[in-house]
């Protein structure tokens, strides 16, 4: 539109988000501009349609799946909630030496002069690492393909 009123301003007007002065000016303009009036009506139709748009519903099995996953992850592992480094290494299925090389990255804390790791924090750390690895390996493959092409 080249009449000084943008579509975004019309959207603001219908949501009540213009200053009173600007709202008055835009309303006055809309009263005499067919194109803007038609745009404003389209926005109002859209808002009405948005209000009627049904929510997508998750399947009824969703709660069961979440319960099962939570139970497996948080309770079914058999590992204690607060782990020693030995237990954390066993939990991650790596050697204690390998674990100690990662110690600065791990979500460990000191307790009575010894290091401990909370299982839930360790799982979060693993998840973050998994995501970073997945993204990095995909990017590296892209770089490899680009280099070859």
């Amino acid at each position: 539109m080249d009449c000084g009123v943008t579509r975004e301003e019309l959207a603001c007007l219908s949501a009540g988000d213009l200053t009173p002065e600007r709202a008055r000016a835009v309303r006055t303009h809309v009263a005499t501009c067919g194109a803007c009036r038609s745009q404003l009506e389209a926005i109002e139709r859209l808002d009405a349609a948005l209000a009627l748009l049904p929510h997508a519903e998750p399947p009824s099995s969703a709660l069961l799946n979440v319960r099962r996953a939570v139970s497996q992850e948080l309770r079914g592992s058999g590992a204690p909630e607060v782990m020693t480094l030995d237990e954390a290494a066993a939990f991650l299925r790596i050697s204690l030496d390998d674990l100690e090389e990662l110690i600065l990255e791990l979500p460990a804390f000191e307790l009575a002069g010894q290091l401990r790791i909370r299982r839930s924090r360790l799982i979060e750390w693993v998840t973050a690492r998994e995501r970073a690895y997945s993204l990095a390996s995909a990017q590296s493959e892209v770089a490899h393909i680009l280099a070859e092409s």
Partner: protein
Amino acid sequence: MADITDDELLAMYSDGDAEAFDTLFDRYRAPVYNFAHLMLGRADGAEDMLQETFMAVARTAERYQPHGHFRSWLMRIVRNRCLNELEARRVRRRMAARSGLDLAEPPADGPSPPERLERSEQMARLRDLIAALPERQREAIVLYAFEQMSYREIGDVLGVPVNTVKTLIHRARATLALDFG
């Protein structure tokens, strides 16, 4: 449990009350799933996001600091997971395009038979138009139109100031109105 706040439910779950978790799930499964569905455009991805989001809730229940904004916190979790998934999809698409492999994304879900009966073509078209919006506008309009979140709450979820939220929402509405007719 209807009169128990979200923060209280999470504290109860943290103390071992599994039913409290189910109540939270029941309160928020639809908004979380719907947000993910509209952001990702596919039901299978939305189910994964729903599961991952509530697993994150379960993981962090013990450390959660009650602040009365559970819904914003929850929507931030699903939003971040959706953005990660969209980024991973972009990378996969670039890879597929470069390697000449036919790894095209499966098409967005069409309405299921019962939905077809109950939803007009217009509604299905509106969903498609929302799915085609730029990411930031899409997430803002979904939180605004479906979850009836305030501008401030949406700002909390997206990590942007209120004025930016308004710009995103009104730009999205203007674009949708133009295409929706």
